[in-house]
Protein backbone atom coordinates (compact mmCIF):
# COMPACT_ATOMS: atom_id res chain seq x y z
CA UNK A 1 0.00 0.00 0.00
CA UNK A 2 1.33 3.43 -0.89
CA UNK A 3 1.89 5.72 2.08
CA UNK A 4 -0.80 8.32 2.76
CA UNK A 5 1.85 11.00 3.00
CA UNK A 6 5.50 10.69 2.17
CA UNK A 7 8.10 13.36 2.80
CA UNK A 8 11.61 13.28 1.41
CA UNK A 9 14.23 15.77 2.54
CA UNK A 10 11.71 18.51 3.26
CA UNK A 11 13.15 21.83 4.42
CA UNK A 12 11.50 25.13 5.26
CA UNK A 13 12.79 28.50 6.39
CA UNK A 14 11.06 31.70 7.39
CA UNK A 15 13.59 34.30 6.33
CA UNK A 16 16.90 33.40 7.91
CA UNK A 17 15.25 31.13 10.45
CA UNK A 18 15.30 27.48 9.42
CA UNK A 19 12.18 25.82 10.80
CA UNK A 20 12.48 22.40 9.17
CA UNK A 21 15.62 20.68 8.00
CA UNK A 22 15.79 17.52 5.92
CA UNK A 23 12.59 15.89 7.13
CA UNK A 24 11.90 12.44 5.71
CA UNK A 25 8.99 10.45 7.03
CA UNK A 26 5.91 8.53 6.05
CA UNK A 27 2.38 8.44 7.39
CA UNK A 28 0.72 5.13 6.56
CA UNK A 29 -2.85 4.69 5.45
CA UNK A 30 -5.21 3.62 8.21
CA UNK A 31 -2.77 4.70 10.89
CA UNK A 32 -2.60 7.56 13.34
CA UNK A 33 0.68 9.45 13.20
CA UNK A 34 1.32 11.90 16.00
CA UNK A 35 3.85 14.71 15.77
CA UNK A 36 5.09 15.75 19.18
CA UNK A 37 7.85 17.99 20.40
CA UNK A 38 8.56 21.22 22.24
CA UNK A 39 7.01 24.42 20.93
CA UNK A 40 9.12 25.89 18.18
CA UNK A 41 10.26 22.46 17.07
CA UNK A 42 8.51 22.90 13.73
CA UNK A 43 5.73 20.34 14.09
CA UNK A 44 2.90 22.69 13.11
CA UNK A 45 4.89 23.99 10.15
CA UNK A 46 5.52 20.39 9.11
CA UNK A 47 1.81 19.62 9.21
CA UNK A 48 0.98 22.79 7.29
CA UNK A 49 3.50 21.77 4.63
CA UNK A 50 1.57 18.51 4.25
CA UNK A 51 -1.47 20.61 3.28
CA UNK A 52 0.60 23.01 1.16
CA UNK A 53 -0.51 25.88 3.40
CA UNK A 54 3.21 26.44 3.78
CA UNK A 55 5.35 25.88 0.70
CA UNK A 56 8.36 23.70 1.40
CA UNK A 57 11.64 25.17 0.17
CA UNK A 58 13.26 21.88 -0.67
CA UNK A 59 12.50 18.18 -0.84
CA UNK A 60 9.30 16.54 -1.97
CA UNK A 61 5.94 15.68 -0.51
CA UNK A 62 3.63 13.03 -1.93
CA UNK A 63 0.03 12.58 -0.92
CA UNK A 64 -1.32 9.12 -1.79
CA UNK A 65 1.42 8.84 -4.38
CA UNK A 66 0.78 12.21 -6.03
CA UNK A 67 3.31 15.04 -5.78
CA UNK A 68 2.06 17.98 -3.72
CA UNK A 69 2.79 21.43 -5.10
CA UNK A 70 6.07 20.67 -6.83
CA UNK A 71 7.17 18.06 -9.35
CA UNK A 72 10.78 17.15 -10.06
CA UNK A 73 12.07 19.10 -13.05
CA UNK A 74 15.17 18.84 -15.23
CA UNK A 75 18.60 18.97 -13.60
CA UNK A 76 17.36 18.77 -10.04
CA UNK A 77 15.13 21.80 -10.41
CA UNK A 78 11.51 21.57 -9.40
CA UNK A 79 8.40 22.72 -11.17
CA UNK A 80 5.59 24.47 -9.31
CA UNK A 81 2.41 22.60 -10.16
CA UNK A 82 -0.66 24.68 -11.07
CA UNK A 83 -3.09 25.64 -8.32
CA UNK A 84 -5.75 23.40 -9.82
CA UNK A 85 -3.48 20.40 -9.38
CA UNK A 86 -2.72 21.37 -5.78
CA UNK A 87 -6.45 21.73 -5.13
CA UNK A 88 -7.05 18.25 -6.52
CA UNK A 89 -4.42 16.68 -4.29
CA UNK A 90 -5.85 18.62 -1.35
CA UNK A 91 -9.23 17.02 -1.98
CA UNK A 92 -7.85 13.92 -0.30
CA UNK A 93 -7.00 15.94 2.81
CA UNK A 94 -9.19 17.35 5.55
CA UNK A 95 -7.73 19.84 7.98
CA UNK A 96 -8.62 20.80 11.54
CA UNK A 97 -7.02 23.93 12.99
CA UNK A 98 -6.03 24.97 16.48
CA UNK A 99 -8.29 28.03 16.23
CA UNK A 100 -11.22 26.04 14.73
CA UNK A 101 -11.60 28.64 11.96
CA UNK A 102 -15.32 28.21 11.60
CA UNK A 103 -16.97 30.87 9.45
CA UNK A 104 -18.75 33.04 12.02
CA UNK A 105 -21.59 34.20 9.77
CA UNK A 106 -22.81 30.67 9.08
CA UNK A 107 -24.53 28.23 11.42
CA UNK A 108 -22.91 24.91 12.28
CA UNK A 109 -24.98 23.34 9.51
CA UNK A 110 -24.04 26.13 7.11
CA UNK A 111 -20.35 25.64 7.84
CA UNK A 112 -20.58 21.93 7.04
CA UNK A 113 -22.82 22.41 4.00
CA UNK A 114 -20.85 25.20 2.36
CA UNK A 115 -18.28 23.17 0.45
CA UNK A 116 -20.79 20.39 -0.22
CA UNK A 117 -22.84 22.92 -2.15
CA UNK A 118 -20.07 25.02 -3.71
CA UNK A 119 -17.35 22.46 -4.34
CA UNK A 120 -19.13 19.12 -4.68
CA UNK A 121 -22.20 20.87 -6.10
CA UNK A 122 -24.61 18.61 -4.28
CA UNK A 123 -28.30 19.52 -4.43
CA UNK A 124 -29.47 21.33 -1.29
CA UNK A 125 -31.39 18.41 0.21
CA UNK A 126 -28.54 15.99 -0.31
CA UNK A 127 -25.96 18.44 1.05
CA UNK A 128 -28.08 19.09 4.11
CA UNK A 129 -28.61 15.39 4.78
CA UNK A 130 -24.89 14.72 4.52
CA UNK A 131 -24.06 17.72 6.70
CA UNK A 132 -26.52 16.62 9.37
CA UNK A 133 -25.13 13.08 9.31
CA UNK A 134 -21.64 14.44 9.88
CA UNK A 135 -22.78 16.70 12.71
CA UNK A 136 -24.36 13.63 14.29
CA UNK A 137 -21.04 11.85 13.92
CA UNK A 138 -19.45 14.43 16.23
CA UNK A 139 -22.47 14.37 18.60
CA UNK A 140 -23.76 17.78 17.54
CA UNK A 141 -26.97 16.92 15.69
CA UNK A 142 -28.87 19.18 18.10
CA UNK A 143 -26.63 22.20 17.47
CA UNK A 144 -27.06 22.45 13.69
CA UNK A 145 -28.81 25.83 13.86
CA UNK A 146 -26.31 27.46 16.23
CA UNK A 147 -23.77 30.03 15.15
CA UNK A 148 -20.13 29.46 16.18
CA UNK A 149 -20.33 32.29 18.73
CA UNK A 150 -23.14 30.38 20.44
CA UNK A 151 -21.07 27.21 20.81
CA UNK A 152 -18.37 26.26 23.30
CA UNK A 153 -14.82 25.81 22.07
CA UNK A 154 -15.12 22.05 22.17
CA UNK A 155 -18.35 22.17 20.17
CA UNK A 156 -16.81 24.54 17.64
CA UNK A 157 -13.88 22.23 17.15
CA UNK A 158 -16.22 19.28 16.64
CA UNK A 159 -18.15 21.26 14.02
CA UNK A 160 -14.82 21.94 12.34
CA UNK A 161 -14.11 18.20 12.35
CA UNK A 162 -17.55 17.53 10.86
CA UNK A 163 -16.92 20.17 8.20
CA UNK A 164 -13.72 18.41 7.15
CA UNK A 165 -15.21 14.91 7.37
CA UNK A 166 -18.23 15.82 5.23
CA UNK A 167 -15.93 16.14 2.22
CA UNK A 168 -14.89 12.51 2.76
CA UNK A 169 -11.14 13.04 2.83
CA UNK A 170 -8.83 10.03 2.93
CA UNK A 171 -6.46 11.78 5.31
CA UNK A 172 -7.26 14.06 8.24
CA UNK A 173 -4.67 16.54 9.49
CA UNK A 174 -5.09 17.96 12.99
CA UNK A 175 -3.04 21.01 14.00
CA UNK A 176 -3.05 21.10 17.82
CA UNK A 177 -6.81 20.54 17.86
CA UNK A 178 -7.17 20.86 21.64
CA UNK A 179 -4.53 23.47 22.43
CA UNK A 180 -6.93 26.39 22.65
CA UNK A 181 -9.53 24.51 24.68
CA UNK A 182 -10.17 24.50 28.41
CA UNK A 183 -9.05 21.20 29.91
CA UNK A 184 -12.63 20.08 30.55
CA UNK A 185 -13.50 20.56 26.87
CA UNK A 186 -10.45 18.71 25.59
CA UNK A 187 -11.95 15.32 26.37
CA UNK A 188 -14.95 15.65 24.07
CA UNK A 189 -12.73 16.49 21.10
CA UNK A 190 -10.25 13.72 21.84
CA UNK A 191 -13.16 11.28 22.18
CA UNK A 192 -14.34 12.13 18.66
CA UNK A 193 -10.80 11.77 17.33
CA UNK A 194 -10.36 8.42 19.06
CA UNK A 195 -13.56 7.19 17.44
CA UNK A 196 -12.31 8.35 14.04
CA UNK A 197 -9.07 6.46 14.59
CA UNK A 198 -11.00 3.31 15.51
CA UNK A 199 -12.95 3.65 12.26
CA UNK A 200 -9.64 3.41 10.44
CA UNK A 201 -9.24 7.05 9.39
CA UNK A 202 -5.74 8.01 8.38
CA UNK A 203 -4.73 10.81 10.73
CA UNK A 204 -1.71 13.02 11.24
CA UNK A 205 -2.00 14.86 14.54
CA UNK A 206 0.17 17.60 16.00
CA UNK A 207 -0.56 17.43 19.70
CA UNK A 208 0.60 18.21 23.19
CA UNK A 209 -1.68 15.47 24.52
CA UNK A 210 1.01 12.92 25.19
CA UNK A 211 -1.52 10.52 26.70
CA UNK A 212 -3.59 10.59 23.53
CA UNK A 213 -0.51 10.13 21.38
CA UNK A 214 0.67 7.19 23.48
CA UNK A 215 -2.69 5.46 23.38
CA UNK A 216 -3.97 6.17 19.90
CA UNK A 217 -0.97 6.60 17.62
CA UNK A 218 0.61 3.73 15.75
CA UNK A 219 3.43 6.01 14.75
CA UNK A 220 5.06 8.71 16.79
CA UNK A 221 7.41 11.39 15.51
CA UNK A 222 9.35 13.45 18.05
CA UNK A 223 10.63 16.67 16.57
CA UNK A 224 13.30 18.93 17.94
CA UNK A 225 14.88 22.01 16.39
CA UNK A 226 13.22 21.32 13.05
CA UNK A 227 14.47 17.77 12.75
CA UNK A 228 13.17 14.31 13.62
CA UNK A 229 14.88 13.30 16.86
CA UNK A 230 13.02 10.02 17.38
CA UNK A 231 10.32 8.11 15.58
CA UNK A 232 8.57 4.78 15.75
CA UNK A 233 5.67 3.13 17.53
CA UNK A 234 4.91 4.69 20.95
CA UNK A 235 6.14 1.61 22.80
CA UNK A 236 9.55 2.11 21.20
CA UNK A 237 9.74 5.87 21.42
CA UNK A 238 8.68 5.88 25.06
CA UNK A 239 10.83 2.88 26.02
CA UNK A 240 13.11 3.58 28.93
CA UNK A 241 15.70 4.73 29.40
CA UNK A 242 14.57 7.89 27.67
CA UNK A 243 17.23 9.73 25.76
CA UNK A 244 17.93 12.98 27.63
CA UNK A 245 16.18 15.16 25.07
CA UNK A 246 12.94 13.18 25.19
CA UNK A 247 13.11 13.00 28.98
CA UNK A 248 13.49 16.76 29.19
CA UNK A 249 10.47 17.19 26.96
CA UNK A 250 8.23 14.65 28.67
CA UNK A 251 9.05 15.87 32.14
CA UNK A 252 7.78 19.27 31.12
CA UNK A 253 4.31 17.83 30.85
CA UNK A 254 1.77 17.59 33.59
CA UNK A 255 0.38 14.43 32.09
CA UNK A 256 3.73 12.73 31.69
CA UNK A 257 2.26 10.12 34.03
CA UNK A 258 0.11 8.95 31.15
CA UNK A 259 3.15 8.43 28.97
CA UNK A 260 4.90 6.58 31.81
CA UNK A 261 1.98 4.25 32.32
CA UNK A 262 1.64 3.48 28.66
CA UNK A 263 5.27 3.24 27.75
CA UNK A 264 5.14 -0.51 28.18
CA UNK A 265 2.30 -1.01 25.73
Amino acid at each position, binding site marked *: MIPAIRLEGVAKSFGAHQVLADISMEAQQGEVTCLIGPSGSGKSTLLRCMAF*LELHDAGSIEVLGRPLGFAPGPMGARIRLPDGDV*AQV*RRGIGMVFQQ*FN*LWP*HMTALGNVM*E*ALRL*VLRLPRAEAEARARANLARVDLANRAGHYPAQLSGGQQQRVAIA*RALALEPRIMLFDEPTSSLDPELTGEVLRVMRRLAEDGMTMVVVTHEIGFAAQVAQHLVFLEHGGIALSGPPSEVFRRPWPPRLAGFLEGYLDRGAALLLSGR
Partner: protein
Amino acid sequence: MNAALLWDSLPSVAAGFGVTMLMWLPGLALALALGLVFALLRQYGGRGVDAALGLVLAAVRGTPFLIQLFLLYYGGPLVGIDLDATSAGLLGLAVYGGAYYAEIMRGGFAAVPRGHLEAAVMAGLSRAQTLRRILLPEMALLILPAAVNMAVVLMKETAVLSIITVPELTMVITGIGSSTFAFTEAAFLLALTYWALTEATGVAGRFVERRMAQVRLA
Protein backbone atom coordinates in the same frame (compact mmCIF):
# COMPACT_ATOMS: atom_id res chain seq x y z
CA MET B 1 -38.55 83.00 18.29
CA ASN B 2 -40.89 83.27 15.40
CA ALA B 3 -41.99 79.70 14.95
CA ALA B 4 -45.10 80.66 12.98
CA LEU B 5 -42.98 81.87 10.08
CA LEU B 6 -41.33 78.51 9.88
CA TRP B 7 -44.63 76.71 10.23
CA ASP B 8 -45.94 78.54 7.19
CA SER B 9 -43.01 77.34 5.12
CA LEU B 10 -43.45 73.72 6.11
CA PRO B 11 -44.26 72.55 2.56
CA SER B 12 -41.01 73.92 1.16
CA VAL B 13 -39.13 72.54 4.18
CA ALA B 14 -40.63 69.14 3.47
CA ALA B 15 -39.56 69.40 -0.16
CA GLY B 16 -36.03 70.29 0.95
CA PHE B 17 -36.00 67.35 3.32
CA GLY B 18 -37.05 65.13 0.43
CA VAL B 19 -34.17 66.36 -1.71
CA THR B 20 -31.74 65.80 1.17
CA MET B 21 -32.91 62.19 1.44
CA LEU B 22 -32.73 61.78 -2.34
CA MET B 23 -29.13 62.99 -2.28
CA TRP B 24 -28.09 61.12 0.84
CA LEU B 25 -29.45 57.61 0.31
CA PRO B 26 -28.46 57.13 -3.35
CA GLY B 27 -25.19 58.95 -2.61
CA LEU B 28 -24.58 56.54 0.26
CA ALA B 29 -25.34 53.53 -1.95
CA LEU B 30 -22.96 54.82 -4.63
CA ALA B 31 -20.29 55.58 -2.02
CA LEU B 32 -20.51 52.03 -0.65
CA ALA B 33 -20.31 50.53 -4.15
CA LEU B 34 -17.42 52.77 -5.13
CA GLY B 35 -15.67 52.09 -1.83
CA LEU B 36 -15.90 48.35 -2.43
CA VAL B 37 -14.56 48.72 -5.97
CA PHE B 38 -11.65 50.85 -4.69
CA ALA B 39 -10.92 48.45 -1.84
CA LEU B 40 -10.95 45.42 -4.17
CA LEU B 41 -8.78 47.21 -6.72
CA ARG B 42 -6.27 48.02 -4.02
CA GLN B 43 -6.34 44.43 -2.77
CA TYR B 44 -6.17 42.58 -6.07
CA GLY B 45 -5.08 45.19 -8.62
CA GLY B 46 -1.37 44.81 -8.09
CA ARG B 47 1.20 47.06 -6.51
CA GLY B 48 0.96 49.93 -9.02
CA VAL B 49 -2.81 50.23 -8.82
CA ASP B 50 -2.67 50.00 -5.04
CA ALA B 51 -0.11 52.80 -4.75
CA ALA B 52 -1.78 55.10 -7.30
CA LEU B 53 -5.27 54.60 -5.93
CA GLY B 54 -3.99 54.97 -2.39
CA LEU B 55 -2.57 58.37 -3.27
CA VAL B 56 -5.73 59.60 -5.01
CA LEU B 57 -7.99 58.42 -2.19
CA ALA B 58 -5.73 60.02 0.41
CA ALA B 59 -6.05 63.30 -1.52
CA VAL B 60 -9.85 62.98 -1.50
CA ARG B 61 -9.88 62.27 2.22
CA GLY B 62 -7.38 65.03 2.87
CA THR B 63 -9.30 67.91 1.29
CA PRO B 64 -12.59 69.54 2.36
CA PHE B 65 -15.72 68.26 0.64
CA LEU B 66 -16.71 71.85 0.00
CA ILE B 67 -13.62 72.47 -2.12
CA GLN B 68 -14.11 69.20 -4.01
CA LEU B 69 -17.68 70.15 -4.89
CA PHE B 70 -16.56 73.59 -6.01
CA LEU B 71 -13.90 72.12 -8.25
CA LEU B 72 -16.30 69.53 -9.68
CA TYR B 73 -19.25 71.85 -10.30
CA TYR B 74 -17.57 75.09 -11.26
CA GLY B 75 -14.24 73.77 -12.49
CA GLY B 76 -15.61 70.63 -14.19
CA PRO B 77 -16.94 72.37 -17.30
CA LEU B 78 -13.41 73.66 -18.00
CA VAL B 79 -12.24 70.07 -18.48
CA GLY B 80 -15.41 68.85 -20.17
CA ILE B 81 -17.28 67.55 -17.11
CA ASP B 82 -20.50 69.48 -17.35
CA LEU B 83 -22.93 68.18 -14.75
CA ASP B 84 -26.12 69.66 -13.38
CA ALA B 85 -26.11 70.43 -9.67
CA THR B 86 -27.86 67.20 -8.62
CA SER B 87 -25.57 64.93 -10.63
CA ALA B 88 -22.47 66.78 -9.46
CA GLY B 89 -23.73 66.49 -5.88
CA LEU B 90 -24.33 62.76 -6.18
CA LEU B 91 -20.98 62.16 -7.84
CA GLY B 92 -19.26 64.28 -5.22
CA LEU B 93 -20.89 62.36 -2.36
CA ALA B 94 -20.05 59.05 -4.03
CA VAL B 95 -16.37 59.85 -4.51
CA TYR B 96 -15.92 61.52 -1.12
CA GLY B 97 -17.76 58.72 0.70
CA GLY B 98 -16.14 56.09 -1.49
CA ALA B 99 -12.67 57.26 -0.48
CA TYR B 100 -13.53 56.77 3.17
CA TYR B 101 -15.39 53.50 2.65
CA ALA B 102 -12.45 52.14 0.67
CA GLU B 103 -10.23 52.74 3.69
CA ILE B 104 -12.76 51.28 6.13
CA MET B 105 -13.21 48.18 3.96
CA ARG B 106 -9.48 47.75 3.46
CA GLY B 107 -9.13 47.60 7.22
CA GLY B 108 -12.07 45.19 7.35
CA PHE B 109 -10.53 42.82 4.80
CA ALA B 110 -7.23 42.89 6.67
CA ALA B 111 -9.00 42.03 9.94
CA VAL B 112 -10.61 38.83 8.63
CA PRO B 113 -8.63 36.06 10.34
CA ARG B 114 -6.25 34.33 7.87
CA GLY B 115 -7.32 31.00 9.32
CA HIS B 116 -10.86 31.47 8.00
CA LEU B 117 -9.41 31.74 4.52
CA GLU B 118 -7.16 28.73 5.03
CA ALA B 119 -10.24 26.78 6.08
CA ALA B 120 -11.87 27.84 2.81
CA VAL B 121 -8.81 26.74 0.83
CA MET B 122 -8.80 23.36 2.56
CA ALA B 123 -12.52 22.97 1.89
CA GLY B 124 -11.75 23.42 -1.81
CA LEU B 125 -13.45 26.78 -2.34
CA SER B 126 -12.13 28.77 -5.29
CA ARG B 127 -10.75 32.27 -4.83
CA ALA B 128 -13.95 33.83 -6.17
CA GLN B 129 -16.11 31.65 -3.92
CA THR B 130 -13.94 32.53 -0.92
CA LEU B 131 -14.27 36.23 -1.69
CA ARG B 132 -18.02 36.09 -2.15
CA ARG B 133 -18.95 33.69 0.63
CA ILE B 134 -16.31 34.25 3.31
CA LEU B 135 -14.29 37.43 2.85
CA LEU B 136 -17.07 39.88 1.90
CA PRO B 137 -19.61 38.88 4.56
CA GLU B 138 -16.99 38.78 7.32
CA MET B 139 -15.62 42.15 6.23
CA ALA B 140 -19.14 43.61 6.23
CA LEU B 141 -19.71 42.38 9.78
CA LEU B 142 -16.41 43.81 10.96
CA ILE B 143 -16.95 47.29 9.51
CA LEU B 144 -20.62 47.65 10.48
CA PRO B 145 -20.15 50.25 13.27
CA ALA B 146 -17.64 52.31 11.26
CA ALA B 147 -19.85 52.10 8.16
CA VAL B 148 -22.88 53.43 10.03
CA ASN B 149 -20.76 56.26 11.40
CA MET B 150 -19.64 57.19 7.93
CA ALA B 151 -23.24 57.12 6.70
CA VAL B 152 -24.07 59.77 9.30
CA VAL B 153 -21.08 61.87 8.24
CA LEU B 154 -22.27 61.71 4.62
CA MET B 155 -25.77 62.72 5.67
CA LYS B 156 -24.42 65.84 7.32
CA GLU B 157 -22.16 66.57 4.34
CA THR B 158 -25.26 66.83 2.12
CA ALA B 159 -25.69 70.28 3.68
CA VAL B 160 -22.63 71.36 1.70
CA LEU B 161 -24.53 70.64 -1.55
CA SER B 162 -26.42 73.93 -1.00
CA ILE B 163 -23.24 75.66 -2.14
CA ILE B 164 -23.74 74.28 -5.66
CA THR B 165 -27.47 75.14 -5.64
CA VAL B 166 -28.92 71.71 -4.92
CA PRO B 167 -32.30 72.65 -3.37
CA GLU B 168 -31.86 70.47 -0.30
CA LEU B 169 -32.82 71.19 3.29
CA THR B 170 -30.01 73.59 4.14
CA MET B 171 -30.60 75.66 1.02
CA VAL B 172 -34.35 75.79 1.61
CA ILE B 173 -34.15 76.70 5.27
CA THR B 174 -31.40 79.27 4.94
CA GLY B 175 -33.48 80.71 2.10
CA ILE B 176 -36.42 81.01 4.43
CA GLY B 177 -34.11 82.59 6.96
CA SER B 178 -33.01 85.31 4.58
CA SER B 179 -36.52 86.10 3.33
CA THR B 180 -38.02 86.30 6.81
CA PHE B 181 -34.95 87.46 8.72
CA ALA B 182 -35.58 84.61 11.21
CA PHE B 183 -32.00 83.36 10.82
CA THR B 184 -31.63 81.93 14.31
CA GLU B 185 -34.90 80.03 14.18
CA ALA B 186 -34.00 78.65 10.77
CA ALA B 187 -30.56 77.53 11.88
CA PHE B 188 -32.02 75.97 15.00
CA LEU B 189 -34.61 74.04 13.00
CA LEU B 190 -31.91 72.94 10.61
CA ALA B 191 -29.67 71.62 13.36
CA LEU B 192 -32.62 69.84 14.95
CA THR B 193 -33.54 68.11 11.70
CA TYR B 194 -30.01 66.81 11.05
CA TRP B 195 -29.71 65.66 14.61
CA ALA B 196 -33.01 63.78 14.34
CA LEU B 197 -31.76 62.10 11.16
CA THR B 198 -28.50 61.21 12.88
CA GLU B 199 -30.35 59.66 15.81
CA ALA B 200 -32.63 57.72 13.45
CA THR B 201 -29.59 56.37 11.61
CA GLY B 202 -27.99 55.43 14.91
CA VAL B 203 -31.11 53.56 15.99
CA ALA B 204 -31.22 51.70 12.67
CA GLY B 205 -27.51 50.90 12.92
CA ARG B 206 -27.82 49.57 16.47
CA PHE B 207 -30.80 47.47 15.41
CA VAL B 208 -28.75 45.83 12.67
CA GLU B 209 -25.79 45.37 15.04
CA ARG B 210 -28.04 43.66 17.58
CA ARG B 211 -29.41 41.37 14.90
CA MET B 212 -25.83 40.55 13.91
CA ALA B 213 -24.65 39.99 17.47
CA GLN B 214 -25.14 36.25 17.21
CA VAL B 215 -22.80 36.04 14.25
CA ARG B 216 -20.07 38.22 15.72
CA LEU B 217 -16.59 36.90 15.29
CA ALA B 218 -16.21 34.05 17.72
